[in-house]
């Protein structure tokens, strides 16, 4: 990879992260957009984890696989009851690996 390629890619990624943090960017968020942003966290993060749990194979297709399904369910239950991230991740990963080995 050339230095030019690396710098170009860096620019695109940094721009996507920084663009809307720049106050000089003339952008006023209206009431509706502001209201939608309340849901950005759960929506984006769910859009990331959803396909990991429900899409399998190459090319990826919707499918139910026991390790992902069971471990994701356990993670959701633990997160709901305990609100503890580390505990949730550790136990659900343990179940996940156990089911994969088995």
């Amino acid at each position, binding site marked *: 990879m050339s230095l030019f390629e690396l710098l170009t890619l860096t620019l*695109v990624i940094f721009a996507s992260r920084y663009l*809307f943090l720049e*106050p000089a960017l003339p952008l006023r968020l209206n009431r509706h957009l502001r209201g939608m942003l*309340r849901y*950005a966290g759960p929506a*984006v993060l769910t859009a990331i984890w959803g396909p990991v749990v429900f899409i399998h194979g190459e090319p990826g297709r*919707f499918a139910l696989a026991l390790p992902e399904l069971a471990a994701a369910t356990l993670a959701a239950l633990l997160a709901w009851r305990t609100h503890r991230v580390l505990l949730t*991740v550790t136990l659900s990963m343990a179940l*996940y690996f156990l089911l994969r080995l088995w």
Partner: protein
Amino acid sequence: MNAAPLPHPGRRLARGAVAIAPLCLAVVPWGLLAGSYAVSAGLSPLEGQALSLILFAGAVQLVVIGMGQDGASLAAMLLATAFITARHLLYGLSLRDRVGALPLRWRLPLGFLLTDELFAVCTRHDAPAFDRWYMLGAGLVFYLVWNLATLVGVVMGETLPGIEALGLEFAVAATFIAIVVPNLIDRALWVAALSALVVAVLAAHLGIPGGLVLAALAGMGAGYVTEQVAP
């Protein structure tokens, strides 16, 4: 909420570092992979490390290394990168009110460090009301862990066994589930998450590019409409 004076900046840094620790754990195998994959794809160790130091974007790094190996053009890499990285625009929008009000010397580093994981800890239900030191602490620790994991991956190179097969993706899924679920405290938030889930899975199943951002927008729209119509 502004009764007590804020604790020392060091304490707030540390609080952010602690908050992101579980997410660091889940990303370590990915860092190892980013390092070893770069070296086994023919990049020099320095180039492999530079990707993590400068790009600091796991999914983009892996895709770009793979594309480079296949001899893809820069234009193709940029297009793929734009699709993957577009979600960061939403994070920037969400944090605009808070980070945008800070001086440039804060905005630049916080913007550079703005990953999925950093956004996740900043939107946790029990995260402190926006605190720049907390965000900086979390971002720096995540950056450090990502780069240390990459370094180990670069050094181990091809001797690292096929960690792709271990189901590393699920580690990240588990952390995001752990963060999202406690946040679902009203009907509109549930609708937002479930809508995003359905659209994301459907888009992936149909092979629609940019499905992630599409799903996120659908979830945000559905949540907001629910809040307005049937809170």
